[in-house]
C-alpha cells in the first residue's frame, strides 16, 4: 500500500511538471513552480547531509587506528577552517577568497598541468603500443588541432587552417550530434519509465 502511494505521488508530480511545461495554465504553472522549488530545497538539504556524512566518516577514520587517518584529519581540519572563515566572514570576504585563490585553484590547476604532460606522454607512446591506422589518424588529428589552435609563430601553412576548421565542424560535430541524440533518447525513455511507474528509483518493487 505504501509503495502504491509512493508510485502515485511520483507519477502525479511528474505529470504536473510535464504538463505545466507545455500548457500555460496559471494554476498548473504555479503548482509546477512550487514543486520545483521543493525539489530544489530537497537537493540543497541533501547536499548538507552529504557534507555531514563526509565529516562523520572521516571523523571515524581519524579516531581509528587506520594508517591513513592523517588524510582524514587533514580533511576535517581544512573543512572546519573553511567553514569557519566563510561562515563567519562570508564567502565573498577577502579571507575566503584567499583560501580559494591560493589553495583550491592552484591544487586543481596543477592536476590539469600534470594531465597535459601525461596526455603528451601517452601520445608519444601510442604508435609504439598500437601501431594501426586508427592510432595514426588520432595522432595526426591531435597534431593538426594543436598546431592550428595556437598562433604558430604567425606562420600560415596553406590548407592547415582550413583542415582544422573542417575537423572541428564536420567529423567532431557529427560525433557530438550522435552522442546528443543518444543522450536525448535515453532521457526520454527514462522519463517515460518513471512516469508510467515501470522504473521506481524512489523505492518499491
Amino acid at each position, binding site marked *: 500500500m505504501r509503495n502504491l502511494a509512493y508510485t502515485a505521488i511520483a507519477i502525479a508530480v511528474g505529470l504536473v511538471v510535464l504538463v505545466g511545461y507545455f500548457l500555460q495554465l496559471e494554476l498548473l*504553472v504555479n503548482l*509546477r*513552480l512550487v514543486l*520545483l*522549488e521543493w*525539489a*530544489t*530545497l*530537497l*537537493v*540543497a538539504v541533501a*547536499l548538507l547531509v552529504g557534507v555531514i556524512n563526509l565529516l562523520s566518516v572521516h571523523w571515524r577514520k581519524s579516531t581509528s587506528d587506520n594508517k591513513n587517518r592523517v588524510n582524514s584529519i587533514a580533511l576535517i581540519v581544512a573543512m572546519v577552517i573553511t567553514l569557519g572563515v566563510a561562515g563567519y566572514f*562570508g*564567502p*565573498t570576504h577577502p579571507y*575566503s*577568497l584567499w583560501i*580559494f*585563490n591560493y589553495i*583550491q*585553484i592552484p591544487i*586543481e*590547476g596543477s*592536476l*590539469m598541468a600534470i594531465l*597535459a*604532460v*601525461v596526455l*603528451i*606522454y601517452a*601520445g*608519444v*607512446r*601510442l*604508435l*609504439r603500443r598500437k*601501431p594501426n591506422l586508427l592510432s595514426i589518424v588520432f*595522432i595526426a588529428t*591531435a*597534431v593538426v588541432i*594543436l*598546431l592550428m*589552435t*595556437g*598562433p*604558430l*609563430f*604567425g606562420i600560415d601553412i596553406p590548407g592547415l587552417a582550413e583542415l582544422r576548421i573542417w575537423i*572541428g*565542424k564536420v567529423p*567532431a*560535430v557529427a*560525433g*557530438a*550530434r550522435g*552522442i*546528443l541524440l543518444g*543522450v536525448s533518447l535515453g532521457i526520454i525513455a527514462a522519463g517515460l519509465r518513471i512516469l508510467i511507474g515501470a522504473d521506481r528509483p524512489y523505492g518499491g518493487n
Partner: protein
Amino acid sequence: MEEIYCPLCGKPNPAENKFCDFCLAHLKPPEGGLPEPDAVQFPGIDNNQDGLGSHASDSEVPSWLSEIEGEDQGETDQLAEPEPESRKSDEPISDWMTGISEAEESDSLSSDETLPSGAIPPVDPFLYGQEVPASDNLPEWLNEALEEEEPPEVVDPDIWAEPSPHVSGEPDTPQEDLTPTKPIDESTESLENAGPLAGLKGALSAEPGVARARIPAAYSTKLKVTANQRAHVDLMKTLIEDEDQPLPLPRRGAISQQHVLRWVIALVLLMVVLWPVVTASQQMPYPSYDEGSAEVNRLINQLPENERVLVGFDYEPGLAAELDATGDPVIDHLMSQEALLTLVSTSPTGPILAERFITETQADHEYINGENYVNLGYIPGGAAGLQSFFGNPQGTLPYSIDRSSAWGSESQDALPALAGINQITDYAMVILLVDDPDVARTWIEQLGPSIIDPEVLTSFVLIASAQLEPVIRPYFESSPQPVNGMVVGLRGGAAYSRLTESDGIPREYWDAFGMGAFVAALLILVGGLGYYVIPELSSIVQDQGKT
C-alpha cells in the same frame, strides 16, 4: 623382546614359540625339514596300520583327549568287527528298509573289493605325488622347504584302483569314465596336528580353512615406479606447482625509461611555456575571429546601457585559467556597456569563482556588489533547479550570497541588477561560462524553449572550454538557435580580444599558449615516430646481424 609373526594370522608371537598363541599354527618349520610320509609323527598318534594307534606318551596328551581317543578306539573296534548276524537276521523289515540294506550291502562289497583287507592307508598330511599349489595358501618358508625336498617314494594311491583304461590305451567310453574306480580314501583325510582337535582324523581341517580365510596380506601402498617415471613425475609436479605461483614482475629501476621520458616532456613544456612569461613576449598575432565570436560581439554591442544580464559561472577551479582568459574579453566588453549583472551557478564553487572573476579579473571596472551586480549564489537541483529559477527566480534564490534580500520587499526596493526581473526572459542576455558538456546541455535544454520564441529578445551566449566546441556547435548551427553565440577556448577569447581591440588575459597567455601547443604537437609527432621507428630499426639491424 624378539617376536616372530604367524604366517597364517600375521599376529606377533614370542620368538621361542613353536605355535601361534592366537591360531595355533606352526610358527617355524619343523626341525630337520619335513618328515617322510611314513615317518610323519603327530603328537599322540601312532602311524600304524591299525589306524589310530596307541599313545606314545600319556604325558603329551591331555586327559580329555585320552578319553576321546578311548571312545574312538572302542568305536573303531566295533567297526572292525564283522557285522553281527543279528543285523541280517530275520527281523522283519519294511520295503524301503530293504532297499537301503541292499544298497549298503552292495556298497560294502565294492569297498571290500577295492581295499586290501586290513590295509589302512597311512596318515599323510600332505598329498604326495600331487603337485602342491604354489604359495597361495602356504607360507613362504614352507614352499621353499617343499621345493628343496624331493618327493618321497610313496605307495601310489592308484594301486587300490582298478587298471585305468587310459593306461591300457584302449579307447574309453563315457560309461567307463563315469564308473567309480577309486573308493573314498581315508588316507586323504587329514589328521589334525594342532589345536584342540589335534590328533583327530577326518575333522574339518582348520589350517587350510584358516589359510583361505586369513587376512589378506598387507601389500605396500607405495607405487613402484622406475627412475625414469619418477623423473617425469617430479617434472610434472614442478610444472603444476609453478602454475600457482605468480611470476614476479620484473623489477623496475628507480629511474626507468618512462620516468625519464615523462620528466623530459614536463621540463620541455615548462621551459617553453615559461619563456614568453619571463621575457614578457607578446608578439604572437591574434587569430582571426569566427562567426560565433562575431555574433557574441554583435549582441553585446546592441545592448543598451544598464541592461540586465544573467551570467552563469559553471566551471571548476581547475579550469579557471582557461575560462578566465576566454571570458575576460567578453565580460570586459559587457561591463564596458555598463550592463547590470546577476551571477548564479549550479556548481557549489561557482559563486566564489564568480565573485573572484568580477572583483579581481575585472577590477578595472570597479563594479560594486549590490549596485552593479548581484551574486545570487548556488542553484541546487541541477536541471530542476534551473527550471525553477528560470520560471520563478525570486522564489528559487530569494537572497544574495551576502545574505541580503536581493529581490526587495515592501520596505526595501530590489537591487538595481534585479529590478524588473520576474522571469528569465526579462534579462536581455544570458551568458554561461561552462567547462562541462552535461552542464552546458542542461542549460541549453532548460533555457532554450524559453528564448526560442521570436518575440523574446533574450539572447543566450556560451563561453566554453575548448573541449566543448563539438558539443555546443550543433546548438549554435541549428535553426532556430537555442545558442546565439559562442566563444570557445583561449583561441576564441583571443579572437574576441582582436574584435574588441583589448589586451586582457588572452594577451598574457597567448604567446605561452602558442609555444606550448606547438611544442606539444612536436613532441607527439617526433617522439611518437622515434618511439616507433627506432625499435623497428634496431630489430631489423639485429635480424640482419643474426643472418
